[in-house]
């Protein structure tokens, strides 16, 4: 019975991330538009865009290989699996044993690898620029992310998300400066990974400094729909990761009462809206960086992660 329940929760979770991810993107766009005193498209617009793209015919470049055609499906699959592993409203997922932070990084890394390859496949110069920049950003963001993982693992004694959430929610945590540093570092990494504003502008196709959009410039039709959905899922994943690790309150941790799940879902909805508002506010308040300043920005995340680990060593060594 417990197994059935676990699988049920996992199924709900998989459907939930897929259904809610475009809504989060739509919310961020809407709030950004309102902050700029524009009317903005409806929050449901990303769904309509996805449907329209899915109905359209695919236009392929003449020299596109099988990799170019296969990559969107693989990218989408890897990102969906990763997003479904992060606990959103309950930690009792059927695949919670595999919801490991390092596994998450590996899944996202392979999705990025495929996207970078697909960007270079057709041989246009924009795709190449986008891929090389994406890999440059990734080579700095991933070490920072791993240091954050080390911090969490040292603190909670596990890299499994459900144990980390349970540890952070428990009263034995106390006041931790390392967690604060790791949170700031994770926010920086999330901004860089999701191509948000100080690093990349998600709203334009016509900028010489674009990164993500340059790689997917050659895609059209259902391929583009899958890639856009994967991008929305990735944003959703980072939001739920931050919510799960740093604000786990309300999350149903190993409980079987139905009320706990309802509360978890409500709390998660509130966290989602709050993070969407904060992201839009941050993106409106800040200007985009030059590409060559991005290493400094991510270097700060790396430094914060390292500092968090070092501080933790001090308090453990006593």
């Amino acid at each position, binding site marked *: 019975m417990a197994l059935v329940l676990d699988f049920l929760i996992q199924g709900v979770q998989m459907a939930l991330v897929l259904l809610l991810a475009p809504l989060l993107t739509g919310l961020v766009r809407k709030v950004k538009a309102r902050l700029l005193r524009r009317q903005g498209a409806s929050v449901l617009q990303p769904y309509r865009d996805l449907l329209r793209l899915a109905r359209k015919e695919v236009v392929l470049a003449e020299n596109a290989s099988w990799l170019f055609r296969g990559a969107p499906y693989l990218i989408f699959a890897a990102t969906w699996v990763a997003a479904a592993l992060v606990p959103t409203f309950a930690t009792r997922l059927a695949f919670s044993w595999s919801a490991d932070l390092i596994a998450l990084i590996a899944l996202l890394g392979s999705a990025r690898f495929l996207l970078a390859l697909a960007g270079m496949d057709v041989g246009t110069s924009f795709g190449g620029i986008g891929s090389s920049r994406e890999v440059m950003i990734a080579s700095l963001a991933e070490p920072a992310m791993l240091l954050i993982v080390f911090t969490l693992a040292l603190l909670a004694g596990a890299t499994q998300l459900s144990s980390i959430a349970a540890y952070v929610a428990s009263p034995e945590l*106390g*006041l*931790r*400066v*390392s967690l604060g*540093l790791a949170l700031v570092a994770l926010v920086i990494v999330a901004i860089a990974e999701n191509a948000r504003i100080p690093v990349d502008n998600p709203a334009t196709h016509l900028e010489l400094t674009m990164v993500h959009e340059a790689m997917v410039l050659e895609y059209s039709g259902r391929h583009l729909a899958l890639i856009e959905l994967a991008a929305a899922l990735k944003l959703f994943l980072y939001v739920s990761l931050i919510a799960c690790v740093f604000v786990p309150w309300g999350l149903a941790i190993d409980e079987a009462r139905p009320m706990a799940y309802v509360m978890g879902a409500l709390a998660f909805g509130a966290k989602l809206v709050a993070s969407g508002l904060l992201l839009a506010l941050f993106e409106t308040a800040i200007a985009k960086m030059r590409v060559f300043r991005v*290493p*400094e920005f991510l*270097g*700060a995340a*790396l*430094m*914060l992660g*390292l*500092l968090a680990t*070092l*501080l933790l*060593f*001090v*308090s453990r*060594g*006593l």
Partner: protein
Amino acid sequence: MDRLAFDIAHLLAGSLVLASFMLLYQDRLYAMLNLFALQALLLALSVAWQAHIQGASHLYVTAGIALLFKAILIPLALHRMIERLGIHREVENVVGIGLTMLAGMALVALSMVVMLRVTAEADPLAREDLAFALAVVLLGLLMMVTRRNAVSQVIGFMSMENGLILAATGAKGMPLVVEISVAFSILVALVVVGIFLFRIRERFDTVDIRALDSFRGERR
């Protein structure tokens, strides 16, 4: 000892190290001054918390001195100095920020390794404070080495002194007379440094240290 009291001390001392790193990262003069004031404020809070835990009332005086002199007076004086000097507000680094950050990380790791090994028998709070204090001192030194602008070297020097105060609060039995005289000597140092800055500026039209080097004929 109370777990929460220890955690708060850890938080404040840790943010002091973080403020040192932010000083190292920042490349605009006014922002650096604000950060320095923030670091002094954190120092005052940290010292006051130590006074509360240890029940040592003279430490409150130290905290007050740190707040008054280093969080308010010195930043204001430096602010006016930069205005009167009319210099470039961007600071040039000798090496890139990434390399500086890595060096800073190595220094923090070094100070932790050294201090935690040396002070094995001491009180946990004092050990931690000493480790963080050494890190702040080393980071201040690093800042003095990696900056070309004389004003930012002064800020590095002052932030180094913040580390010394932090170390002094951890060690029990530092007489108040010593602390007050240290605080005043810092003020005197500020006055002397200010005079020197104006002299350098008058002579070379810049406060870039490279001008001094070429004047002495060390670098062609």
